[in-house]
């Protein structure tokens, strides 16, 4: 397993380096490069999968951007997708746990939407959700927790608000030219999914380094990278590959893996239990061994997306590194008392490690090199209503 990962990373780097400076050759690649959308990603990166029933288009992306940031798209008109996914925070909200439109505090931390087009599964722990079209239904229409709070009772009112906004008709007509009455819920969902699918980011210092700019990574960052990919820290097992997550899918892949991991955050009462409202994959499967299993998120823009973990329970990267160095979290008092280091369900790679202060500094410098500042300010991804 370890060797396979090493080989994979090596191959990836070779491919990345090989792509540098080469001219593009157009071949019939069975759809690997077929798209009507200008993804604006480096040519050495694989394109995300586009659903055949909702292929990407600039018009859908643009419509989706307007809908994503539109507070009218909630039951009480107070919250948009963008309320919990702010561009400046890499499409997170900076809170430990997000708050829905009716004030309900969610169990989980708002995740970055960066490169979610490459996620093999969506949300923190759900193997049933593999398309953004289906995932978008959860925040829009979910009842528990209530996020945007659109219900059967207010759905017509919400749609009327969209119909009444003069900017929308032409946006919908451009995005869905074959539809006689294009403003409907299905097209709202497909457009938002298209916008979120288009939120791709490959312009960090780390990316520039692999595109040939050897000055893009400092000595400290390079040292941190070596630690990250080393067999002492084992970070890369779950956060490997070009998207720093082992739950990654793209058009070049034949075999898709959809892994989930327990990192030893909780071990309530020594049983391995996680808090009841947020126990991970077991909520879907009912299998005891799935207790506390969550999908490894990308580490791109990780310096921007504090607080960390599925429950937002860690405030800094230093705290996260200390947690992994300890091989789990020991909670000594309160309702969640228990030593996560000895959880029976903990992933085998979370075994702890020793780190000098310099090592820790280098690792954090490396994680900071994964920040794509362009992504945080690019008007292509920005709120179109802000100027109003």
């Amino acid at each position, binding site marked *: 397993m370890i060797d396979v990962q090493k080989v994979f990373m090596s191959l990836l780097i070779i491919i990345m380096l090989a792509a540098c400076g080469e001219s593009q050759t157009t071949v019939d690649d069975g759809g690997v490069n077929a798209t009507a959308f200008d993804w604006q990603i480096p040519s050495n990166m694989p394109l995300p999968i586009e659903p055949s029933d909702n292929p990407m288009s600039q018009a859908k992306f643009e419509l989706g951007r307007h809908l994503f940031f539109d507070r009218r798209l909630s039951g009480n008109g107070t919250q948009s997708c963008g309320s919990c996914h702010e561009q400046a925070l890499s499409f997170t909200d900076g809170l430990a746990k997000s708050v829905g439109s009716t004030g309900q505090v969610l169990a989980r931390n708002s995740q970055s939407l960066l490169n979610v087009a490459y996620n093999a599964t969506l949300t923190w722990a759900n193997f049933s959700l593999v398309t953004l079209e289906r995932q978008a239904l959860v925040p829009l229409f979910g009842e528990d927790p209530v996020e945007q709070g659109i219900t059967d009772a207010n*759905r017509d009112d919400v749609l009327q608000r969209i119909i009444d906004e003069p900017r929308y008709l032409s946006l919908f007509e451009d995005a869905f030219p074959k539809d006689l009455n294009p403003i409907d819920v299905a097209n709202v969902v497909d457009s938002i999914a298209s916008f979120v699918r288009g939120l791709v980011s490959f312009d960090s210092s780390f990316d520039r380094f692999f595109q040939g700019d050897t000055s893009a990574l400092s000595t400290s960052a390079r040292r941190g990278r070596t630690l990250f990919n080393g067999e002492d820290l084992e970070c890369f097992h779950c956060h490997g590959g070009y998207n720093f997550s082992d739950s990654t899918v793209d058009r070049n892949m034949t075999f*898709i893996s959809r892994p989930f991991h327990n990192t030893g955050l909780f071990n309530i009462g020594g049983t391995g239990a996680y808090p009841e409202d947020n126990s991970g994959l077991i909520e879907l*499967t009912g299998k005891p061994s799935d207790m506390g299993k969550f999908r490894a998120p990308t580490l791109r823009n990780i310096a921007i997306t504090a607080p960390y973990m599925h429950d937002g329970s860690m405030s800094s990267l230093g705290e996260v590194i200390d947690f992994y160095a300890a091989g789990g979290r020991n909670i000594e008092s309160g309702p969640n008392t228990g030593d996560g280091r000895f959880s029976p369900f903990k992933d085998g790679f979370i075994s702890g490690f020793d780190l000098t202060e310099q090592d820790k500094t280098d690792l954090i410098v490396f994680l900071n090199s994964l920040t794509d500042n362009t992504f945080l300010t690019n008007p292509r991804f920005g709120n179109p209503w802000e100027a109003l």
Partner: protein
Amino acid sequence: MQALKEYFKTRHKNVSRTALSISTMLLLAACSSSSDSNSSSSNDSDSRIEIPITIPFSAQASGLSVDCAATFTGLGVANASGSILDFRFYVHNVTLISDSGGRYEVTLDDNNYQGGGVGLVDFQDMDDTCSGAVASTNKQITGSVTADEDVVFNDLEFTIGVPANLNHEDPSAATGHLNILGMHWNWQGGYKHIRMDVAVVGGAVPSWNFHLGSTGCTPDPTDPLNTGAAVSCDRTNLPIVSLANFDPASDTVLVDYGELVSTSDVSANAGGAPGCMSGQTDPECAAIFSKLGMDVTLDDSTENYQSGTQTVFSVM
């Protein structure tokens, strides 16, 4: 024509031969007028006719009919009182069984509550968890069977829920009964097959909910496009209801909510989601599932997963 349909609805027993003959003649006349004159039908099919079917449903608890206004008493082991917030369920594979053992699957009519072979039975007569405007209900399943004109139906069988082939379609693109947000179960990628939510007086939670849905649903792991198509579920949770001695001309299917929760404590939350949301580890699901003849701990690969006898549905 409407009168004829109404007539057929109640005609299966206690009707005179004369009336039957007349109606058969009317049907045959209608056929010949709408098709070419070159009749090649066999002798077998001469006596087979399309018979309209209506299967009425009634829901009760503690002797009261289920609607938003009713307050039930004596619910469950804690003798709790409560009123519904939501009370709906899907059915499919509706089949009548004749006295000679013939199985006749009812072809469901297409209307706002039916389509694709699936019907929604709905007792919630006010919108927005019984707090909003007056809402339409649907207390019957209608359709037709093609059978010998003197067929006598003895039994009824149907399956609760949305069948697997429709359960994972895009609900936002569906219509009518399959595009009701309150019946979508998006986080599990399907529908709520049953939704029965009850506000319990003095209860530990705002509502004690029963949501039956398919669980452990994963997309085809070999699907290279990650499309989410070809979903399979560990537990489809589609209980089959078999009712003996059911005469569609005179009988009604009774749904007994009091029986469903008779061994549950609806005034408390024993853990997991309040009530039972089909979680295998939810301590409240075992009792509810057993009332529907299912074992929550077993998955579809286990033969005795549905070996129990449901007691919630009966003939009235």
